[in-house]
């Protein structure tokens, strides 16, 4: 499908341009999501997109599905209600690193633990964008934020692997530079029955970039290009080669475990028959 058709089919294009800053990586990820949905041929009426609060969480407002912009951190909890109520719905959560892993961290690990059929796309820009550049649970150690004026002493979460450890049955990481791969992972995540998560590394030139002297949006995209290596490729690399690199790729893909809302539906079906 032509991109113009893609946009008019899946976006509320009268609401564009979106509020994101020039060069904000969030737009690239949003674009990937609609491409993935198109590739899967989903019925728009049977797709719900839920978000919390943050720059990233503004995405659903631009997307022509059933869309829900909730409270900060709680998207997965709202989404859980929707998925359990309507197991046939494809439920996608769009969340920021802060929204998903700071205030929303508990809902993330519990949704993962239940293996409920929700796809979470984390727009990870390593900062709280919406509130102006405070450090987040994924801000690298030593980096700066407005609340880390002397360098961040926290150590960052590896969101994809945390989700996997909590029980997610699909977990992958990719970046805004690797947009084709991103579309591919998101597509697999949405097709997956259980809980799936794609950590999409974004860029925030306005706050993270400026606070940490990372240069323009272009420079930050180049950084993504150069710093991220696929887990599989990494296996064949030396420690020196891996110095300063970050891993991307698919970390978990288990299709054996039953999905939560379907399991509950079995109880309903059993009891109703009785």
């Amino acid at each position, binding site marked *: 499908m032509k991109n113009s058709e893609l946009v008019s089919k899946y976006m509320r294009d009268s609401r564009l341009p979106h509020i994101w800053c020039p060069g904000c990586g969030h737009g690239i990820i949003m674009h990937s999501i609609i491409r993935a949905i198109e590739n899967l041929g989903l019925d728009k009426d049977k797709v719900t997109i839920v978000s919390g609060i943050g720059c990233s969480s503004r995405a659903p407002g631009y997307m022509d599905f059933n869309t829900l912009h*909730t*409270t900060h951190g709680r998207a997965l909890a709202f989404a859980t209600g929707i998925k359990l109520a309507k197991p046939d719905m494809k439920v996608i959560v769009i969340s920021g690193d802060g929204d998903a892993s700071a205030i929303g961290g508990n809902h993330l690990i519990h949704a993962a633990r239940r293996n409920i059929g929700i796809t979470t796309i984390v727009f990870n820009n390593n900062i709280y964008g919406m509130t102006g550049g405070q450090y987040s649970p994924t801000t690298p150690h030593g980096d700066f934020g407005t609340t880390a004026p002397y360098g961040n002493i926290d150590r960052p979460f590896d969101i994809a692997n945390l989700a996997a450890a909590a029980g997610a049955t699909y977990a992958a990481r990719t970046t805004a530079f690797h947009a084709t791969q991103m579309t591919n992972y998101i597509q697999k995540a949405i097709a997956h029955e259980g809980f799936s998560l794609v950590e999409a590394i974004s860029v925030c030139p306005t706050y993270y970039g400026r606070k940490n002297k990372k240069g323009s949006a272009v420079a930050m995209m180049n950084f993504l290009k150069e710093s991220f290596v696929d887990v599989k490729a990494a296996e064949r690399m030396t420690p020196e080669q891996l110095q300063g690199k970050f891993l991307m790729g698919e970390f978990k893909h288990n299709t054996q475990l039953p999905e939560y809302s379907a399991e*509950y539906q079995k109880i309903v079906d059993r009891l109703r028959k009785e």
Partner: protein
Amino acid sequence: MSKRIVKLMQGNEACVAGALAAGMKFFAGYPITPSTEIAEGSAEKLPEVGGKFIQMEDEIAGIAAAIGGSIAGFKSMTATSGPGFSLKQENIGYAALAEIPLVIVNVMRGGPSTGLPTSPGQGDVMQAMWGTHGDHPVIAISPQSVTEMYYETVRAFNLAEKYRTPVILMPDEVVGHMRERIEIPNADELEIFDRLKPVEGEDYIPYGVREGDLVPRMAGFGEGYRYHITGLFHDDMGFPTNSTVKAGVKINRLMAKITDNLEDLISYDEYLMDDAEIMIVAYGSTARTAKNAINKLRAEGIKVGMLRPITIWPYPVEATLARAKQVNKVLVVEHNLGQLMLEVERVVKSEAELHFLGRADGDVFVPSDIVKKVKEVL
């Protein structure tokens, strides 16, 4: 009409039974004394009627999932007690602003904080009105008996669906945990309100009110209307707006849902008020204690009566004021240190002398406490 079932039932059990009768199909919550039986009963019964129950990781997730269930088209409920009610506040405001029907039960125990978890209290009455930030519409109901727990749960669902707003049911622990005789009405005896759906063939304006309607019609997600819901101020299409004009229209409409419909929302009861010279105002289990005391006082010839708000928010202002003009004295009795009392004082102004009897130590009043107090203020 088939015969009604008569049985001993617990208040919390009656809440579940009422909810099911009202059409509840979704419950999400987190256990907490003294509300847990509501979750337990829902877990047991919902799948039997094709509904869903989920125990979430905390109370915040509980209400969030319940709102999600409601957005998906199901009549939804969550239940909790003080500490959990505090945690739910942010999302209560969300449901109010986004106009999502929802029933929230707060079985009141002794607060503040963990307080007296197994003791009764009525200390969350003002919180029901003011617990979340920002101005917002509130409907809160306080039943006094197991039978009322049943019927008022039904009414809570009806109001939630009719007004597209969260409705808070506020039994105290005594009502939640006591067991008493109830006659369960047959299904055909109950009026059940189902949320109005978009009119087919018409353009759907998610937050626009159709001529003749009370509130915007609500499409469930997945029903073919793709629209946006947000906790930001929004325009009629549901999209965020910073327009102060649109924000003003929205908030005024939200508040008007209450202020324009007081008659439909307010429910109260009077006991021996016609010749009363002293009016007791009490609600929930405390009102039963007061009734017992009134009977004792009447036996001594003291002309005391009671006004019992069942809907506590919006408060029955007119009824109270009218009676305040009739009587000399008003005595508010609450299982707290003076909450609804403040509202009564505001309403009664100088029309009658106001007195208050309250406690918050975990123990309930006995009728003789009230008898004594009435005699004191005589």
